[in-house]
């Protein structure tokens, strides 16, 4: 036993190196606290939060809703694909984008109920429906589920993967596992190489665009200059990287779930019963990625989500705009930052005039 412990102790310097670098750099802000509150305070104060690093979008929403004072005219729900729908685009000064990275249907339902329960029932909702919304195997592990569980209970629906307690434990262990994580160590080294550790706090600004990542007061996301000013060969490379990496939603997608279809319909209906006007959007993929999807068996079932959402829009009597197919949105490769995200300017090409007759 002594020999075994002595052996283990020999590796302590390595562990200390990893943990030390991860704690010092912490590029994704997973080991520090209070970051989301700071960003929420800036946005609630009517300013944009630039120099943005990675943050917990769900925690940010909870902090933000407790600080906001003004009513919400148009609420945008969805993943990062929704985060380019600005108040300038909608024409409504009281637009707020409650998009969260990787958000699924459960996130959207929970976010809507969070705002409603805090007195911010919007007049209009734009729900950006991603392909992973309707498959039970592609649900986001980080999703907000409290509001979703309550919604399912009220409507007699079967909730998907809502072991909340297990998730809280998972979140806690995830935090500490990042401290010893080797992939996180590599990100931390990269972060330190760029000298970013001294410049980690969000900065309030009125600028619409900045050099860094930014969350605007209307909740939309402004990517950093390097990502925004993308050349054609770079956007091609980024699309190719997505294809090679095969995102999680593509690896895990099995079939469109009737249960989730029903939940989406029930969600739209319940918003309409709250007096909310609803519109749906399908976010386009990069043309190269979309072409690859149409030619690859892995993605055939994923592309079936589009006609399903079209049917749902018809059933619920709501407007649907956009498409997974970028050509139907009039977009080219240069309208994309990477394989999945179109630019804020590109949104103007397919966002309908008078979506809500404003």
């Amino acid at each position, binding site marked *: 036993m002594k020999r075994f412990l002595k052996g283990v102790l*020999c590796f302590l310097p390595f562990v200390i190196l990893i943990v030390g670098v991860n704690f010092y750099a912490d590029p994704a802000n997973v080991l520090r606290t209070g970051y989301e509150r700071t960003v929420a305070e800036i946005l609630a104060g009517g300013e944009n939060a630039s120099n943005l690093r990675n943050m917990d979008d769900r925690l940010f929403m909870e902090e933000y809703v407790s600080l906001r004072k003004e009513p919400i005219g148009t609420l945008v729900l969805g993943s990062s694909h929704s985060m380019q729908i600005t108040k300038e685009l909608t024409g409504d000064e009281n637009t707020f984008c409650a998009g969260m990275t990787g958000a699924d249907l459960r996130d959207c339902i929970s976010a809507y109920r969070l705002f409603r329960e805090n007195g911010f029932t919007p007049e209009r909702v734009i729900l950006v429906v991603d392909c992973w919304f309707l498959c039970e195997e592609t649900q986001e592990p980080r999703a907000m589920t409290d509001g979703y569980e309550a919604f399912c209970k009220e409507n007699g629906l079967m909730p998907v993967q809502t072991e909340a307690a297990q998730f809280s434990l998972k979140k806690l262990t995830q935090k500490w596992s990042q401290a010893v994580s080797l992939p996180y*160590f590599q990100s931390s080294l990269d972060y330190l190489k760029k000298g970013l550790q001294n410049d980690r706090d969000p900065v309030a600004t009125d600028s619409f665009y900045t050099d860094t990542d930014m969350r605007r007061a209307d909740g939309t996301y402004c990517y950093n200059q390097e990502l925004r000013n993308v050349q054609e060969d770079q956007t091609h490379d980024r699309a190719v990287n997505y*294809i090679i990496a095969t995102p999680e939603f593509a690896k895990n997608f099995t079939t469109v779930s009737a249960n989730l279809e029903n939940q989406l319909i029930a969600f739209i209906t319940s918003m309409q019963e709250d007096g909310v006007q609803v519109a749906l959007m399908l976010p386009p993929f990069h043309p190269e990625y979309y072409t690859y999807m149409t030619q690859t068996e892995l993605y055939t079932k994923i592309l079936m989500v589009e006609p399903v959402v079209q049917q749902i829009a018809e059933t619920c009597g709501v407007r649907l705009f956009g498409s997974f197919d970028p050509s139907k949105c009039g977009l080219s490769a240069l309208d994309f930052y990477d394989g999945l995200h179109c630019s804020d300017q590109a949104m103007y090409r397919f966002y309908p005039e008078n979506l809500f007759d404003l």
Partner: protein
Amino acid sequence: MSFQSARFFVFLIVCLFLYYAVPKRWKNLFLLLASWFFYSCAGTAYFVLLVVVSAISYVVADVIGRAKTKAVQTTMLVLGLVMLLGNLCFFKYYDWFGRQLAIAASNLGSAYIPPDYGLAVPLGISFYTFVLSGYLIDVYQRKREPERNFVKLALFASFFPLVSSGPVERSTGLLPQFDRPAPFQYDVFCQGASRILWGFFKKFVVADTLAVVVNRVFLDVTVHTGPYLLLAALFYSYQLYCDFSGYSDIAIGMARLFGFDVIENFRRPFAARSFSDLWRRWHISLTSWFRQYLYFPLGGSRKGTIRTYLNILLIFLVSGIWHGSGLNFAIWGLLNGVYMVLGRASGNRRAVLARRNPLYRWAWLKALCQIGIVYLLFTSCIVFFRAENLTQALWFYSRLATGWTDLFHPMAVLNGLRNMGVGYATGVPVLIGVLRVEWGEWRAEKEGCSMGAWICRRPFAQKMAIYYLLLLALAFWGKLGTSSFIYFQF
């Protein structure tokens, strides 16, 4: 649970701690429950299937052991093998058969579409199929008695370090070790841990760095020319070796942590100087399984030359088909078989020519030439293995002769390498990694021990230096994010 996940690490530590803490008579049961827990994380339905298959194999072997007549024994063996292999074929080939049926029906003017059950290939189905099939055949051939203890047999079929992708153990190898579980021994534990670390280095530093380049090229082979396609193929051969042997090192190392000796799966295959020697060193557990349970029963090399060649071709064809239902896998297998047959047929003639070859005057040059030729032959087959389908493989070969004049233009070469994704970030770790792997395994082979044992035998300072070099390589260059092992899909 992937081997590189934090969840698996916690699971392994807890298992080790509890395994050495429980009394001897409970160790096998504990290990079985742990293995079943591990397996059930991949899906409850498939876990139930594993338990049912294990139970049926237990009963079949028991009946074979008790049967008085050969007819009954043979019948039970055939039933058992049909159940096991039928189960494997159903999950692996149902989709392919369904597609062929639909195409045939469409050609006949019918709109028939076979039902889509959304089947995924269960984790480790090949492993436990081969393991249990071998066990039934061993019982039938009286090489061992039927295992009376269901816990041990079920553990043999589902042992968690091996169930994902082997090595394919024999009933005469691993099963008897469950009769005498070893107490904790520091040296054995150290060997296991060292082997695991070595496996991680091979897989996540060397293999996954090579994969960056290979995946980029095979994403669209039509945009790359001959030299770069060849380089990608050469890289892929080594990537596959490091990926699969890395997994094997991790699996064998983990078994060693529990005190078990598991069959080796690789023995420096790229040091082989003949094609047949390569296949004696590559995926040893499976190729020896095919040899023992398929090649020898077919007559092996005892039924004349033509029959021997046919047996060899059949074994490799079956091996190819086992890897996948696509035509490219069948061709991969067949091509390997053809090379084996040609090598065997031309052996004497080649020996005569070798004696007259001026290059072979120097032993080191002879070795280099032979190793290079074998590597190229292996690589020529592996293109079919890597390609998404036969069409892509044929495209690859059609473009292989293009662009060789670019080699005379340094800037064109640099651009070509950049397009492949070869730069300092990939080139340096790959070069150091490959040299490290080959040198390390050569040293271990020279001392007649495994890599884990070789590391443990070093003086303390040298051992710690090796550990830290491997750990720092993993920390700085390891791609531990979401990469999975290539052979998990088979």
